[in-house]
């Protein structure tokens, strides 16, 4: 994969920095653009990826290891803790950028649904497992995920016992987590694998630590992918990664590609990624760096082809503008509720396969909410501090620009990363920006970006831009 080196007409610029932050994080602020304008693609990617791998996991709350009884005695119901942690996740997304971008990716890969698990401590443990392996080793990640209490509960590993096997986890391990549906395994492999995964069936205390129980473990001989033995949990993972190395590598790299680059897969890029991840023994970080630094990643053909998830939409707008928000509003709770209403409740994907994204995000119910909720954020910024809209446009285009089209174009490019819009909408945007300003003010030089009306003009223009269909893309 050819690394990207800016040259000639392909100068390193704000748009490319914006593109990186949008895909790897949740949009990019003007100050982040300034920070990296004199840098290079490689240095930016290193900063973001290395930065993410050095962030600690979110500190444990007091209830991180509680069992059922402790929750019941705590005076709050479990929903209280669930909501608390959903809010924490939004806070982390807001603070940690790429690391939580990965958390979202992985929690939509190794799916659990918190309402099914219904144990807040399990949710916390699952969350930090994801955080700590997000840039780690995929094999280790798979291995530990299968023993996470949340997963044992969600996909019935806890119910999978000798003489009474439950195939649910074994199937999803292959179908959803490592190989893909029907790809390199048979029903017999699943049946045998389920037997090998038995034994994690004993609560130390009810809904507390889940222990391995020799007596419910199936000690008989199993044949998995043609290899026969008295296999147990770690054998399954070893055999899987030994026998199906190529398939796993291709499966996970395709998924990474789709998530970070484009829903339309470029097979030559994925095969280069596949090669890397195998060479690196399933370390996640090198293949990500390779992809993100590639010429392909920066190819404008792939710009604005992904439909924003609700979290992208809200956090992307929030982070890129970095505006002050009304103090009396619980931002995290708002984000959590609004994203849920748009179809993305964190830790509660639509099903075990996760959110499929792309066109699934858009229907006649969610689209008006997307308009409304993006607008809601702008309203809250406006109510808090009108002047920040003016300061922002001055920071973006300078104070001397008086060409309306140039100003509108620059704001559009910043918010759309950039994306061409039709002339008809461009005219609308300019008219909206003119807004209440009398025509004479432009003719006689009364108007400038320092005028009092500018805050409202920028506010109205932003409110217009977020309604354009193209705003749904990233």
């Amino acid at each position, binding site marked *: 994969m050819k690394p990207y080196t800016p040259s000639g007409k392909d100068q390193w610029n704000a748009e490319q920095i914006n593109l990186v932050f949008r895909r790897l994080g949740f949009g990019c602020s003007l100050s982040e653009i300034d920070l990296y304008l004199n840098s290079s693609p490689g240095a930016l990617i290193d900063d973001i990826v290395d930065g993410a791998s050095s962030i600690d996991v979110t500190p444990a709350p007091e209830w991180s290891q509680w069992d059922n009884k402790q929750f019941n005695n705590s005076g709050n119901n479990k929903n209280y803790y669930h909501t608390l942690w959903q809010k924490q996740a939004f806070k982390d997304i807001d603070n940690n950028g790429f690391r939580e971008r990965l958390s979202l990716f992985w929690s939509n890969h190794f799916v659990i649904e918190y309402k099914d698990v219904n144990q807040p401590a399990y949710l916390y443990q699952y969350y930090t497992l994801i955080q700590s392996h997000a840039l780690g080793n995929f094999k280790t990640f798979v291995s530990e995920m299968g023993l996470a209490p949340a997963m044992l509960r969600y996909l019935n590993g806890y119910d999978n016992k000798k003489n009474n096997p439950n195939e649910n986890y074994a199937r999803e391990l292959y*179908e959803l987590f490592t190989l893909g549906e029907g790809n390199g395994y048979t029903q017999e492999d699943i049946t045998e694998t389920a037997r090998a995964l038995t034994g994690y069936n004993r609560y130390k205390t009810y809904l507390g630590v889940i222990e391995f129980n020799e007596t419910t473990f199936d000690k008989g001989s199993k044949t998995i992918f043609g290899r026969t033995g008295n296999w147990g949990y770690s054998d399954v993972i070893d055999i899987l990664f030994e026998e199906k190395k190529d398939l796993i590598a291709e499966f996970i790299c395709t998924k990474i590609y789709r998530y970070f680059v484009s829903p339309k897969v470029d097979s030559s890029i994925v095969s280069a990624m596949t090669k890397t991840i195998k060479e690196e023994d399933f370390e996640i970080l090198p293949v990500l760096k390779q992809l993100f630094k590639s010429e392909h990643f920066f190819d404008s053909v792939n710009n*604005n082809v992904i439909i924003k998830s609700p979290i992208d939409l809200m956090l992307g707008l929030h982070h890129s503008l970095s505006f002050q928000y009304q103090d009396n509003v619980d931002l995290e709770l708002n984000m959590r509720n609004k994203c849920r209403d748009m179809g993305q409740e964190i830790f509660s994907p639509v099903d075990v396969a996760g959110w499929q994204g792309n*066109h699934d995000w858009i229907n006649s119910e969610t689209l008006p909410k997307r308009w409304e909720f993006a607008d809601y954020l702008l309203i809250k910024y406006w109510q808090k501090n009108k002047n920040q809209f003016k300061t922002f446009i001055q920071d973006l285009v300078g104070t001397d620009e008086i060409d309306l089209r140039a100003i509108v174009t620059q704001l559009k490019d910043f918010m759309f990363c950039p994306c061409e819009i039709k002339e008809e909408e461009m005219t609308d945007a300019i008219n909206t920006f003119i807004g209440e300003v009398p025509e004479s003010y432009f003719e006689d030089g009364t108007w400038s970006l320092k005028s009092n009306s500018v805050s409202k003009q920028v506010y109205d223009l932003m409110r217009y831009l977020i309604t354009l269909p193209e705003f749904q893309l990233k």
Partner: protein
Amino acid sequence: MKHRKPNELHLKSHDRDHSHWDRRGFLRTLGMAGAGAISFGNSSLSVVESPLLNKALSDAYSDRILVLIRLKGGNDGLNTIVPLNEFDLYANKRPQIHIPENKLYKLNDNFAMPNFMNSVAPMWGEGAMKVIHGVGYENQNLSHFKSSEIWATTTPDSEISSGWMGRYYEGKYTDYINNPPEKPLAIQIGGGGNMVFDGDLTTYSFSVSSPQRLKRVAENGTLYDNQNNGDHLHGQQVSFLREASNTTFRYASVINDAYERSKAFDAYADNNLDLQMSLVSRFIKGGLGTKVYMVSLGGFDTHANQPTRHEALMTRLTKAIQTFYKDLEDYGMADKVLSMTFSEFGRRVAENGSNGTDHGSAAPIMLFGPALQGSGFIGKHPSLSTLDKQGNMTSGIDFRSVYASVLTDWLCADPVDVGNAIIGSKPDLLGLGLGCDGSENLTMTDDPLMPLHAAVNADQGVSLYLTINESSQVQIAVFDVLGRKIGNTIDSRLSSGRHNLSLIDLAAHDLPSGQYFYKITVNKDKTYSKSFMLK
């Protein structure tokens, strides 16, 4: 994927109930009737359709239409309506820019308008034009922005971000967000930043930034052009999103229907204001059902070279109004449409040094339409000799009184709704006498239905007292403000005399308070309807 957990989908739809939905955001682009739609993924529950809305509304008083014509920038009232009774003083204060007497059209002994406004002279002659003198407000703010805001919100309080029409609709259509009407309540062309139609919860107008845009929507029935997006992935995604937006934005197709149902009138000129008026006319003629339109004409901030600029603007304005009413008259709708000009302020009495005028205060509001049934002046022209320290006139009539009067006398608004709409200071009704007293539909003396019918709120519900002259087949149905029928239709043969019929039985129907309509059909021929408030 075969191994979903059981009951997954079932659980999901329960989880997504809307009870937590914080609805206080506000939809700028509006008209997204889909906002009230309920659909879960692929399974879509049908939206409450209100096909009867416009029927119910237009059978009552709602065939009346109000066109607000915004003169953006501050129209010079003194060169619009010239005071002949203080002409010398007027000419003295404006040596370069006053309209000379030989270029004036006399409206009466005391007032005249410039000849360049002659297009509306026939309307004055035919009793279809009224002028309200000296409209403004106390402590005139001389900023375009702030004063426009005050005219829209009716209060200098910056914390208020809702407009008078927005609050009017918010009070009337309490279930608007969940059950938006099938047609836009109002259409606003240009001036998207103006707050007239903003409520606290949402915006009640379909707003477009330009008439060209509206024309395209009207012609194509879609909000967004979905051609030529390219066939690379980005283009495909744009096509998908534009299609989804077009589908969601349902007002585009009803606007298109009305446009297609009506014919173009070819006398309109090729300019921005005429285009706006011609579109409004097409929607009215096509039966769109939208009751309030706001159009705008900019360029009134005449600090310099006023004579040429103002003449061009007023010529354009008056020609457009003349054409508009000619158009409507040919269609038999002229008496259903009242137009009203307004501007954020008038201009300074004395001219400035560059053949122009600076920001002023009071200015006339002009009303047009045959429904006025008589031309004339309302209020007293402010004196040119007693000016404030900036040299501006003192307003005699508060603009809020004009709004309240138009709402009350033209849109037949309930006092409660007017109270919601007009804040900031208490309005006085000007008594425009446009026939909202209920007599309008009931003046035919040969009718079997006599004298008045009236709905009365009683403890148990609403009763209708009606008196008929001769035995008739009478059908009575009740509708809510969205046009949904409430309860059963009464359909019986009534003997002559007085009857007391139960319209709404509150024991059977737990109805929210608000506005309702009843519709009476006599002998399957004559129809009467009227709105009433359920308290």
